[in-house]
């Protein structure tokens, strides 16, 4: 997980991938695939589709390794983003049944003493949001809910969902960048 790894190691491996180093790519896969697979699975909710997302994401990571700029983004966030976009593309293309899905209260609450300081900061910022707004942000990011799916789930007009999300994102940015 993020907290056990040095961003520098990941950035170095991605740099090696840009030179076509398959051994570095293998190492990157070993380090990150379990987390990225879990992230994809939360979004697509089907092991076969999660496999597709992770497969496509790693191919893209290997091929676009040269375009990753460590001075602009962190390697962890970049790999998560590539995987999430693939998973979201799959879910939007295939559609999915969301009725009857129980709303998770929050993200996993398993206590992790090593939880990265950055995550704790984000958690504090999320706590500034009302409970339903916080749920919407987490359901969108972690579970891949779109504006319209959130509108169905919360039985709220689409416009209201959109403005709640925008206000929440503004609050989060102000808090994190402070």
């Amino acid at each position, binding site marked *: *997980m993020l*907290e056990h790894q040095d961003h520098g190691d990941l950035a170095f491996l991605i740099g090696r991938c840009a030179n076509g180093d*398959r051994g570095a790519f*293998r190492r990157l*896969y070993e380090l990150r*695939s*379990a*987390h990225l*697979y*879990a*992230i994809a*699975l*939360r*979004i697509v909710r089907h092991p076969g589709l*999660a*496999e597709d997302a*992770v*497969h*496509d994401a*790693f*191919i*893209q990571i*290997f*091929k676009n390794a040269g375009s990753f700029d460590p001075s*602009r*983004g*962190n390697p*962890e*966030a970049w790999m*998560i*983003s590539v995987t*999430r*976009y*693939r998973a*979201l*593309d799959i879910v*939007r*293309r295939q559609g999915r049944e969301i009725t009857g899905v129980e709303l998770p209260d929050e*993200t*996993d609450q398993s206590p992790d003493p090593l*939880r*990265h300081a*950055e995550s704790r900061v*984000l958690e504090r910022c999320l706590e500034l949001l009302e409970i339903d707004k916080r749920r919407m*942000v*987490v359901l*969108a*990011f*972690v579970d891949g*809910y*779109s*504006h*319209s799916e*959130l509108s169905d789930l919360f039985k709220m007009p689409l416009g209201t969902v959109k403005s709640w*999300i*925008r206000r929440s*994102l503004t609050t*989060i*940015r102000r808090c*994190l960048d402070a």
Partner: protein
Amino acid sequence: MIDFSDDPEMLAAEYVLGVLAPDDVAVIRSRLADDANLASAVAGWEKRLARLASEVTPIAPPLQIWEQITASLEADDTLAASTPPKTVMPDGLSNSLAFWRMATAASLALAAGLAIWLFANPNRTTIQANVAGPYMTALTPGQSNGPSWAVQAGADGKIFVTTIGPAAKPADKDLQLWAVARGDTKPVSLGVLPQSGTYVTGDAGLPHAHLLLLVSIEPKGGSRTGRPTGPVLIGGELTRGD
């Protein structure tokens, strides 16, 4: 549709959060390469929000994923070594002589291809029973194997595209279906084709008589520019089947 006079910072945030509709996602992606402000806003939000995903507990992935990744990379290597560099079609593709030459050559192979397919597929009536329109074609390379599709237009404007022979394509590419109306030069996207089964397009509002259909190889999720950017695999014209 999203409005780019809107705050680009907020559009970037919504894009990264993943709440936007597919059309809006495609618009954002098409602008990322040229819009440095948007790209930097997206990178900023990716960094901020990625921390949310660190709460997801890792799950060991099935072992075959790595094997498939390796196989895909090797297939790409083989493809790169065995074929001349692919022609990347510019946006002005519709004026390109090569494009039309390829499309014409492909449509010449159609009549024979359709006859073979109809003969070899007595179950075709189940496909045809779903639709009421008389226009059909087959997209085949004119060989006995290789990628091929049976196409039938419905009376409601939708077009049914059934995979007969799946196409081999690099794992990071998708096959995109395009239509060009007779007398027109601009291909209209009808979406990304699945690897198997029957794909049904929306009603693109195009006349079906002599509608030219093309399949091109595009980046995953389809062309970012709204026009074909990769090589055209195959093409054919819809003709009356009755």
